[in-house]
């Protein structure tokens, strides 16, 4: 567990990392506990209260149906951060395994995996995600799959790069001479050496994926209304910009804060775990 301690010790030294960690912790806390502490229902309609400016009863104001923007923002955090997190996990597992396999095996398998990832990288990322999500039909599940498809090739490249040098190591040969199978060598010997690269790439991509998730929901590819996601809230709010700017301002602030926190934490992790990259 020493590397983890090292991360914390190094991170504590600069105020930027501390702020990043705090922002990230606040975002995660809001996503996990938000719905429990939300003052009201995110979907309860109260037409008489519509488009109220922020006040004591509705801290973030209300939207065009009189729904409490604070409650919607807290629930939105769970949906948006949850979707981005699931996409990162899915892309990391699929892309990471393929990258490891290519880097360790080399040869034809490596060639096929790398050319396939080249093909996906040839598209502007968000547009490919739009296409995949549109084809799968709107909903959180298609957004998650679309983002994972866009992200997996990036993770595959990084993991391949990390696995390539490990392949030559003597302990790999030792394991092989003891009769360990390819699967065992990959997971027990190659993977642990690639974990720093995995964490760094994962944390840096998380923020990009969160932004992309917001953009996809903003375009209307996410869960149908009334489910609150940050992107969808921005899209609804923009129609009432002149009369009720708070509907658009608060979800946007939350996206920015969460992404900023992720970026700062990602930078810190990179500085500590992979000094060559900084």
């Amino acid at each position, binding site marked *: 567990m020493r590397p983890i301690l090292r991360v914390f010790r190094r991170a504590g030294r600069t105020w930027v990392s501390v702020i990043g960690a705090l922002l990230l912790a606040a975002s995660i806390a809001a996503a996990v506990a938000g719905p429990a502490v939300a003052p009201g229902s995110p979907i309860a309609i109260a037409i008489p209260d519509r488009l109220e400016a922020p006040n004591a009863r509705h801290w973030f104001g209300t939207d065009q149906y009189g729904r409490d923007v604070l409650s919607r923002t807290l629930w939105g955090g769970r949906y948006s951060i949850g979707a981005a997190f699931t996409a990162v996990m899915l892309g990391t597992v699929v892309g990471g395994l393929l990258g490891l396999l290519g880097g360790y095996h080399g040869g034809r398998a490596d060639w096929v995996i790398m050319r396939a990832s080249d093909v*996906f990288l040839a598209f502007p990322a968000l547009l490919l995600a739009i296409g995949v999500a549109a084809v799968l039909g709107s909903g959180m599940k298609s957004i998650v799959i679309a983002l994972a498809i866009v992200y997996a090739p990036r993770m595959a490249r990084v993991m391949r790069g990390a696995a390539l040098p490990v392949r030559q190591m003597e302990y790999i040969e030792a394991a092989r001479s003891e009769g360990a199978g390819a699967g065992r060598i990959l997971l027990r010997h190659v993977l642990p050496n690639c974990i720093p690269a995995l964490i760094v790439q994962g944390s840096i991509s998380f*923020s990009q994926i969160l932004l992309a998730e917001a953009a996809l929901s903003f375009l209307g590819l996410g869960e149908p209304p009334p489910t609150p996601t940050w992107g969808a809230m921005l899209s609804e709010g923009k129609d009432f910009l002149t009369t009720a700017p708070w509907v658009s301002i608060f979800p946007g602030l939350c996206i920015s804060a969460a992404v900023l926190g992720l*970026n700062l934490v990602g930078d810190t992790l990179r500085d500590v775990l992979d000094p060559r990259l900084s």
Partner: protein
Amino acid sequence: MVKRLAALVAVLAAISVVTFALLAFIPGDPASVMLGPDATRESIAELHQALGLDRPVPVRFAIWLGGVLRGNLGSSIFAHRPVSAMIGERLSTTLTLCALALLIAVVLGVSSGVLGAVRQDGAADQLVRLFQLVGLSVPDFWLAILLLLLFSVELRWVPLVGYKTIGESFWTAIRFLALPALALGVVQAANLARMTRAYMLEVLRNDYVRTARAKGLAGRRVTYHHALRNALLPVITVLGIQVGALLSGAVVVETVFGLPGIGQLVVSAIFTRDYPLIQGIILYTAAIYAVTNVAVDLSYGLLDPRVRAE
């Protein structure tokens, strides 16, 4: 050069395969999915026939690719018009927006990156780094909403409606595209500033910079003539990637301002499940992206004699 162009052809071929495959992944029968639950059995059968869905996949791909190569991207299911014509009439808005945004990104990004590197750890550098952090964290379409709120709703500098394309009225187009270009450009500038600053710091540590200073050249001349030129070379390579980000970003930001570009077309295509239209837009933008990247690669060779020699 020939090698680069051959690679471009390979990339374009791969792009077309993936774009075609997108439609093959639609769960269920594309014809009935596109027409929705209210469609009659006859109209589904008719669209099924029109899309050639009764033929095997390789044959469909060959027919589709043959059309694409002749500039025929198929017809929109909803508007009953050729997809290429629909994209064509909206392309000028999106491309002008991207060009303006790129201009803002390069000017703002490179100058602030240089400023940060020259005044390393000073007050100006701290500001530049703050700008990078915030710029990388703010969604461009939210920044667009904020700019709209400030300049159109509060200050009333830019009207909310009345856009004309660049072909109809140059200055009206620029006026309406300024805010969305600023939103896109600032976010990309943060990225460029980060890279420029990093490369600039690296170059400034080199021996030839020290030599230039030692022989008595003015600080300014060393910074701009010796250091910046070398620092900019790697920055240029990321411009191609920036174009991809700008194309994607423009699609979203356009919808904030209600501009009649590709973005609006994407949104309406998503809502009407107009798959040939979505397919056409993705193919088109990916092709633009691929060509830009090759152009960037080639220009890199022109600017750096070392690359050309290889």
